[in-house]
């Protein structure tokens, strides 16, 4: 419980309009699209790094837990206050502080929405490369915490490859900066360590990102298949031809039909799977690559390859992909999604395994994923009114992730461990590896007050307080 005195001190920092503490308001902050729910006792909306530091000092004084929050799209339970305490929303720290095109950098506050960076520099011919499918909503602070990826990270790399410096506040309120606009600074790469640490080591209050020059040409293809495993073979064939598309996205038939009904993107309703493939670069390069990719697709069993002939056609092809989850929600309000990684060559066998799991559990599982880098997103649909079905769906998901690890992959490629995958950390990492992570975390947060109960499978986990989000009518994702 936050003592009244502490509440008053916190309120004084952010002002009367800078916090929420009424139960009905707090309810909006108990959820991040994942399975778990927990309500903070107070949400504060700082506007400056100094305010964040002042808030941290007060929580230190009273021993109150803290959790940072961006847009709350994290899906793995990372942004919920599973031990109560104060939630620090970065919604009002949403300014782009500097755009430095000459040096291919921007400096932003953590609450800036991912897409807004690209929009701000679009007219000048630049963009910010990591593009999570949630990019219209998710924040850079959340991206840094999760080391977010996206469809186009296949060629360009993920958040950690594009974040060069941070300003951070430690749980005791002290402030430090890492990295900067420059690269190869001496010392340990704290920027790299903090990126992907799921908001458990420090609150990020400023981010230096890399900007890239927009490519002159983009070509987008849709390849249609009667057998999903042929998609996996196509990915291998494209790699073998030394082509690096910027994106290779796969959707299976189940998903395709849901998406088509919702978006009318023009996808074939009878297909077993499609690949959405994009190449970018010099005109000469993309023209050739598109030809080679078409050959690869047809050679691997595609029955048809369509090409977007205009930006409008391209947008239409992407529209289905980008709205996929919304489309699933129309059909089945309850689903869990995983984001396991497998080495590219293991995609066909993993798809087979997922089908077996689906049959064994009697649950519909549809697949949409970043096929180019082996990032599977099985969507497990279930009926939350049937007793035990949520547990069954969760168990099916875990089995799929265990398979990913056994194939040499990982339990998560983008969404992070959060609360959801705590138990699976031990499947992937040895005790010694986990211990090393925990000790590092404690160097930053010795009292374990910052985003407690996440990422590290220690005894202080949140699992025992797990309260699945089962509000009637709620979208479970």
């Amino acid at each position, binding site marked *: 419980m936050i003592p009244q005195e502490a509440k008053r001190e916190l309120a004084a920092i952010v002002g009367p309009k800078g916090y929420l503490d009424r139960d009905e308001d707090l309810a909006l902050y108990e959820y991040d699209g994942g399975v778990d729910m927990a309500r903070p006792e107070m949400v504060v909306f700082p506007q400056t790094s100094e305010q964040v530091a002042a808030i941290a000092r007060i929580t230190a004084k009273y021993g109150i837990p803290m959790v940072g929050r961006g847009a709350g799209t994290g899906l793995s339970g990372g942004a919920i206050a599973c031990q109560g305490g104060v939630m620090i929303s970065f919604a009002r720290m949403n300014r782009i502080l500097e755009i430095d095109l000459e040096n291919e950098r921007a400096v932003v506050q953590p609450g800036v929405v991912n897409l807004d960076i690209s929009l701000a520099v679009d007219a000048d011919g630049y963009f910010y490369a990591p593009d999570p499918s949630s990019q219209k909503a998710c924040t850079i602070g959340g991206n840094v915490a999760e080391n977010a990826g996206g469809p186009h990270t296949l060629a360009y790399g993920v958040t950690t490859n594009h974040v060069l410096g941070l300003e951070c506040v430690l749980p005791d309120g002290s402030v430090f900066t890492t990295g900067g606009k420059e690269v190869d600074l001496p010392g340990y790469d704290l920027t790299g360590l903090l*990126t992907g640490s799921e908001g458990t080591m420090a609150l990020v209050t400023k981010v230096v990102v890399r900007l890239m020059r927009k490519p002159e040409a983009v070509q987008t293809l849709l390849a249609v298949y009667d057998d999903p495993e042929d998609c996996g073979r196509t990915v291998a064939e494209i790699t073998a031809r030394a082509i690096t598309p910027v994106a290779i996205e796969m959707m299976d038939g189940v998903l395709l039909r849901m998406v088509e009904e919702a978006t009318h993107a023009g996808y074939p309703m009878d297909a077993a799977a499609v690949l959405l493939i994009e190449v970018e670069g010099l005109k*000469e390069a993309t023209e050739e690559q598109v030809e080679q990719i078409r050959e690869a697709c047809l050679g691997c069993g595609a029955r048809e390859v369509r090409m977007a002939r205009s930006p409008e056609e391209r947008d239409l092809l992407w529209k289905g992909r980008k709205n996929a989850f919304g489309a699933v929600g129309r059909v089945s309000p309850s689903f869990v999604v995983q984001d396991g990684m497998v080495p590219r060559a293991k995609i066909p066998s993993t798809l087979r395994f997922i089908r077996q799991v689906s049959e064994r559990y009697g649950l519909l599982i549809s697949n949409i994923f970043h096929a180019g880098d082996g990032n599977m997103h099985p969507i497990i649909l279930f009926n939350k009114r049937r007793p035990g079905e949520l547990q069954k769906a969760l168990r099916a998901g875990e089995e799929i992730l265990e398979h990913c690890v056994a194939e040499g992959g990982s339990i998560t490629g983008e969404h992070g461990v959060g609360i959801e995958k705590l138990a699976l950390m031990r499947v992937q990492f040895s005790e010694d590896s986990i211990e090393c992570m925990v000790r590092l975390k404690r160097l930053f947060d010795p009292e374990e007050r910052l985003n407690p109960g996440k990422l590290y499978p220690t005894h202080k986990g949140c699992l025992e307080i797990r309260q699945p989000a089962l509000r009637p009518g709620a979208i479970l994702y």
Partner: protein
Amino acid sequence: METLRPKSIDELAEALREAAGGGKRIRLGGNFTKNRMGGPSPAPDVVISTCELRRIVEYDPRDLTISVEAGLPFAELERIAGEHKQMAPLDPPFYAGATVGGVVAANTNGPRRRLYGACRDLVIGMKFVTLEGKLVSSGGMVVKNAAGLDMAKLMVGSMGTLAAIAVVNFRLAPRPPASRTYASSFSTLAEAFAARDALLRSPLQPVAIDLLNPAAAARIGRQGYLLVVQVGGSEAVMERYARELGRAAVEGESEAELWRRIREFTPEFLAAHPQGAILRISSTLSGLKQVMGAISAPIVARAGTGVGYAYLDDAEQAARTLADATERGWKAVMEFLPEKPPAGLVPWPAPGDDFAIMEKIKRMFDPGHLLNPGRLYGRL
């Protein structure tokens, strides 16, 4: 002095645990090609080399990833990937002798980082052994990973001051079918930067953009401000570059030889100058103009990245240039030291406000300050 060359990761763990347990000061390395790099380190009680750990742990070319032990020579890694028309395009100096672990621990990289990134971008997973003899793993064999802390990032550039890198996993890139290099001389710095700026603002995507000042160009038999630009792709793409950048490109052997001279500039300079030193100045694309304008000693710059290497003939000159650079607010270190460094030399003059955390990390891994003490630019 005794040098231990463990033949397995278990033996490495045993060697570290035993040495640390006995309070021995350890010098850790691969082939020790970069002994002058980093900082003056006191004489060790025991030397541990990973050079006998040279297995390819896993390589399926279809995945564009490879896992190798730390002692594998980097050149060998490149040769094996090359057989499948793939590459780990880090271009580290000391190419012939350097081990994978040494390249990563020293964070050495080269010209093609403009397009492909540096160690921190190409390393996707790692196993390292702590002084307690524990094997810790981070990341994996997939190109994207959000599970657990990315501890491999700590090891990249750590100069062996935290733990011993045992296995490194890289993402590889397909080798472009053709490659060309354009080397143009300019008589003034302003002209050279104007040409670079035009390139950066164009939609062209060079693999490498290096700039040598006249003193550096002279050392490789060239003159003026030398802008060296490498491009890669299909023949149609090469045609496009020819239209945009002119016909004066080199390819094949002479292209490889030019880049070899640039890549090996550092080792060749050090061999010729026992009391010489090299500064690494981390700047920005625009800041590099000031850096190159202010220093007349040879400079090789990654002009598409913002890092400049300045080559100073003797320790005194190096110390003066470092002090001057720091005075101007540049982020500089003395990357390579004179063979006999002057007393009191501090290779890393101005650590930032994150240094206290770095010290804590060092203490966590190495409370007795036994592992490569001082090797991280005299500070850690």
